[in-house]
């Protein structure tokens, strides 16, 4: 199906958001002081690159395949990591905390961008891909959130 200009607009918004995310994750990976955080940022930069590829594919008229297996593996890794983080509170690295806060806001915004776009597409397959990417943005947020919590950077009232 040919994309309407409106649909293209939404995809271009998502695209520029993904490009910004990749740049930020790469920059922040350089700036982060905790090696663990560095690693998370590097990994998520790669994930955002996958999203960008998917959006570019849709813009070129293709429907990208959504890889479920990959996601399951990632989730398992996440839970393992989560367990090993427990109990490491105390000293808060303020510079790392600022990076986390900023990137978490970026992920929230990215997820919201997809949330707006999803409702406007005619092709159900595209909606599905966008929903999948949105879910992954939420999971990135979760990973940052968990890291922040384990380091005492995020206060839950």
């Amino acid at each position, binding site marked *: 199906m040919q994309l309407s*200009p409106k649909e293209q*607009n939404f995809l271009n918004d998502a695209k520029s958001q993904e490009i910004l995310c990749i740049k930020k994750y790469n920059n922040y990976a350089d700036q982060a002081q905790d090696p663990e955080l560095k690693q998370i940022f590097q990994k998520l930069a790669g994930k955002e690159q996958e999203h960008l590829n998917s959006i570019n594919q849709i813009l070129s008229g293709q429907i990208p395949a959504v890889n479920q297996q990959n996601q399951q593996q990632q989730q398992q890794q996440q839970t393992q990591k989560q367990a090993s983080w427990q109990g490491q509170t105390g000293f808060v690295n303020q510079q790392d905390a600022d990076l986390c806060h900023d990137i978490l806001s970026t992920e*929230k915004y990215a997820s919201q961008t997809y949330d707006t776009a*999803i*409702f406007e597409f*005619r092709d159900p397959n595209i909606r599905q891909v966008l929903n999948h990417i949105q*879910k992954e943005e939420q999971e990135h947020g979760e990973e940052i959130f968990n890291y922040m919590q384990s380091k005492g950077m995020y206060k*839950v009232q």
Partner: protein
Amino acid sequence: MQLSQKEKMLLEDLQSHEQMVIQKCTDYANQAQDPQLKQLFQSMVQQEQQHIQKISQKLNQTPAQEQTGQVNQKDAMMCQDMLSSKKYLSSVYNTAIFEIQDKAIRQELNAIQSDKQKLGEEIFRYMQSKGMYQVH
């Protein structure tokens, strides 16, 4: 200045939202039992009409839009209202998901959010089939 495609699209979006709110406010003003509430809704209608006038001017249109074909305006308004509710709910879930500590709850909320999007899709399809939704 000539409006870009994107600017036009966004303004038209605002226009249709304003239209819905005016319709809704008018209906509610008629239905409200408390005179004070009636008056509140009525004054809101006036405000919204000024808003839509401003937007329409930017789009070089008259506020009263031409009716497209045999669209049932009342039904169209209800559809748009419901679709807006689904969008709003999905966005509320999106905000909540990022703040929850428990992974299982996050997943549950994400599943509900996806359902809202699906329901929105159903309304969207109906509206499209009846010429109620313009995809430019």
